[in-house]
């Protein structure tokens, strides 16, 4: 995938399919440590040990629509290509946590890309699921919590186009603040 935010969208899709009601997306970027970490944690159905053992294999999928599942192996490959690591932890009935890291300055590391649109679409496209986005850099932390938005919005829908637009802008501005204002 050309952007890390597309991997995030894709991994989140797994969480959604697992019946999660809360999905936490965490990005930690450190230029000083030359490291970028992406973590996706959900409270969905989880996987048992047996399944987890070879879940990375493209031939492990619970899809009925086709025989290969690509999402996890694509992400793992992306991490390994950038001298990073990949880990997946899961417990049936509790949830799943996928974590991948990248050498920040690695030439093959894809840019984060349009995370603002990604979050706006995830939140608006799945009104029944709560999302927490936490992004940390050497300069600070930005947090977006869909539960807080919904509290403010009361009975106004999160998929209202004006709200979607607001989310996008809020993310963009928030990330600017923790990236030296650029």
């Amino acid at each position, binding site marked *: *995938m050309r952007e890390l935010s*597309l991997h995030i*969208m*894709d991994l989140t*899709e797994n969480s*959604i*399919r697992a019946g999660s009601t809360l999905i936490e997306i965490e990005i930690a970027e450190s230029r000083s440590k030359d490291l970028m970490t992406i973590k996706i944690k959900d409270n969905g159905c989880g996987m048992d040990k047996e399944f987890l053992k070879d879940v990375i294999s493209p031939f492990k999928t619970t*899809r*009925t*629509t*086709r025989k290969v*599942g*690509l*999402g996890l192996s*694509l992400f793992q490959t992306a991490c390994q290509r950038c001298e990073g690591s990949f880990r997946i932890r899961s417990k049936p009935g509790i949830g799943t946590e996928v974590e991948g890291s990248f050498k920040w300055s690695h030439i093959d590391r894809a840019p984060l890309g*349009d995370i603002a*649109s*990604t979050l*706006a*679409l995830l939140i*608006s*496209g*799945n*009104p029944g699921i709560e999302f927490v986005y936490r992004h940390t850099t050497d300069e600070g932390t930005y947090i977006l919590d869909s539960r807080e*938005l919904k509290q*403010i*919005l*009361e*009975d*106004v*829908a999160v*998929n*209202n*186009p*004006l*709200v*979607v*637009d*607001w989310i996008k*802008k*809020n993310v963009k*501005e928030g990330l600017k603040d923790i990236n030296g204002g650029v």
Partner: protein
Amino acid sequence: MKSIEELKKIKEKVKEMTWLRQGDKKATKIVVGMGTCGIAAGARQVMTAIMDELKKRNKTDVIVTQTGCIGFCKYEPLIDVITPDGEKITYVNLTPEMAREIVIKHIINGQAITEWTVKNF
């Protein structure tokens, strides 16, 4: 935070206009396929274009949601347009530009663009 104030203003504005609430039966629905294949093929850009065009045209009675892969990977990015009468039309192999045109011609003017559709999915 200034931004939160803006969100509150949006809420008031929306309430005044009595926009549609989620799950309203009279709304047209657009469902965007968001499996790995769809995302890789540009589904996010398509969904962004749809939301943007709806906002630009002040089109408020449309609900846009997403769904996982439905197994028609070679047709991605694809969307379903479901009108209040229950009719479903599937558009395939979309670009953001095509998505904008669908909003204008189909959603706003009620004229499906049949060349881009697949029947009986």
